[in-house]
């Protein structure tokens, strides 16, 4: 009797979890299928599973047109840029904050932690306004008036450095606690200065945590559609998720709806995060878990 209920519970567990997993994955299945439809067929189908009678693979190749490839390249470049910057920042700052003693160290650490609880609403719009009023660019005079500043300028999606990234400095600091000082002391006796210690001791020893930082930052920046969406209206200078943001926001207005194109682009935009996720899943999970537990 006891055994029967145990088997029953196990099966129930499987059924419930499978149902949940299906719900979680369903929108991606829908998106993939819908992106392979022709426009007319999608309009007629209106099904929960819009299986195309004949898959239009060329929908997915839309990004390999001269106009289509730019946003994709921009997204890659922006992701690479911020990933590198944040990794450098986390390693350097995390290292000196955890190992060196100097005046004001407590202040810097407190400042880093404080920035993590400041609601983004306080900076979102003013940062946008500031971007429009940077002096001497985009037709602005020395007071920052008269032009549009860096709005719609490619630099706008590369220059800002949000303070939410400082959480990774903190994570690196925590990781340094687990590394015995002996390695650095040995390097110092061998005559290594600051930079050589960083490159030859700290970075090689801390590669796992650097991977955690890189993967999570890359995923976050790839998916950050809001900043390019706000700052740049020309899709040739924007990113793929921001371009999709424009298309999806337009769905709320009246007019013509090219759903298959949106879904085809969505499928393309999901591919890089999926690849990162499937190959580097443990780094992502570790990033989330350690941010939650140590933060």
């Amino acid at each position, binding site marked *: 009797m006891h055994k029967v209920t145990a088997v029953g519970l196990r099966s129930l*567990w499987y059924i*419930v*979890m499978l149902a*949940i*997993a299906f719900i*979680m*994955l369903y*929108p*991606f299945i*829908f*998106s993939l299928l*819908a992106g392979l439809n022709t426009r007319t067929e999608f*309009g007629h189908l*209106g099904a*929960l599973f819009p299986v195309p009678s004949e898959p239009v693979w060329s929908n997915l190749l839309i990004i390999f047109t001269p106009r289509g490839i730019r946003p994709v390249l921009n997204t890659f470049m922006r992701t690479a840029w911020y990933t590198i910057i944040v990794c450098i920042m986390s390693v350097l*700052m995390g290292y*000196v*904050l955890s190992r*060196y*003693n*100097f*005046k004001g160290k407590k202040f810097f650490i407190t*400042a880093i932690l404080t920035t993590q*609880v400041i*609601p*983004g*609403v*306080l*900076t979102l*719009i003013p*940062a*946008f*306004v500031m971007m429009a009023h940077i002096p001497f660019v985009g037709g602005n005079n020395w007071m920052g008036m008269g032009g549009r500043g860096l709005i719609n300028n490619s630099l706008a999606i590369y220059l*800002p450095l*949000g*303070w939410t990234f400082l959480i990774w400095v903190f994570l690196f600091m925590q990781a340094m606690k687990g590394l015995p000082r002996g390695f650095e002391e*040995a390097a110092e*006796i061998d005559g290594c200065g*600051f930079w050589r210690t960083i490159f030859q001791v700290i970075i090689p020893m801390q590669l796992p945590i650097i991977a955690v930082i890189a993967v999570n930052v890359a995923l976050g920046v790839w998916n950050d*559609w*809001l900043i390019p969406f706000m700052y740049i209206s020309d899709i040739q200078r924007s990113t793929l*998720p921001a371009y*999709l*943001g424009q*298309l*999806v*926001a337009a*769905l*709320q207005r009246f007019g013509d709806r090219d*759903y298959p194109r949106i879904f085809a682009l*969505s499928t393309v*935009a999901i591919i890089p*995060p*999926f690849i990162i996720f499937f190959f580097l*899943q443990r780094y992502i*999970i570790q990033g*989330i*878990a350690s941010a*939650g*537990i140590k933060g």
Partner: protein
Amino acid sequence: MSGMSAVKLRGPEKTITRAMREARIAYWVIIPFFVYIAIWNLLPLLLGVLMGFTEYNALTMPTWVGLRNYIRFFTQGDYLTLLWRQVWIGLICLSLNTVLSFLIALALNIKSRAKGFFRTSMYIPAIAAVSVTSAVFVSLLDPLTGGANRFLAGMGIDPITWNHSQFWMVFWVVVYFIWRAIGPATIIWLGGLQGIDPSLYEAAEVDGASAIKKVRYITLPGLRFVASYIILTGIIAVMQMFDIIMFLTAGNPFGQTDTLMFRIYRYGAVTFNLGMAGAAGTILGIVTLLFAVVYFKIVLHREAREDA
């Protein structure tokens, strides 16, 4: 080891120069990053507060209007309605997400070969941007051609004009929010669950404690910090949620799903009512922090009482 003692033997004057050298490097590393981040974050924060005291449309110079925007916020228009709507929609999203993710974490905290697959599937929605997945919901909810109504028709149920009903649009906003946010929360809960010392459960088993008692007296107290983290970051997230609203409902029907954050976004980036955007943004930021502080005080107070 002999190397280490050699360093220490070098005498006090060396130690002082070493401390100075360390401080110099530290400042050279930290201060440029801090200044740069301050320019892009602290400066806008201060500008935003100042902006709230002006009337400003981005074309002409701002004019100082004192507290007028703040008075307007509390006495005219629908700002308080929007703030309240941000709060209650956010509260539904956050509380449901916290409870559901906890239940799923409990369900996943067992030994099974399928566990990895289920955990992965929970997390996948979070790795795609809102702008990339919300079109699925928009398309399914299309009143005429959408899959949801076709499905209902197939079941013999009358179609629902989703976008004409505040209830249904809030419902779908909540569904979408949870769909995206449940994975990370589940993983954080799971991390907390695995951090609990298993010997506590063994001891409880020896004492003959029931499963519910084990959850009440071991699991829940062991998850205090994880719970605070999920709820605090959740409060900050839902109080600024506007992307889901923008993509799924655009505030419709008739502005009945419009929230304060979505209004601030439109004032700031679309209609350039920047003075009001600054004032409303400052108010929403302060309200968010107040909620966080109140939550923190309640938790700390309760913990202090339990420990006493």
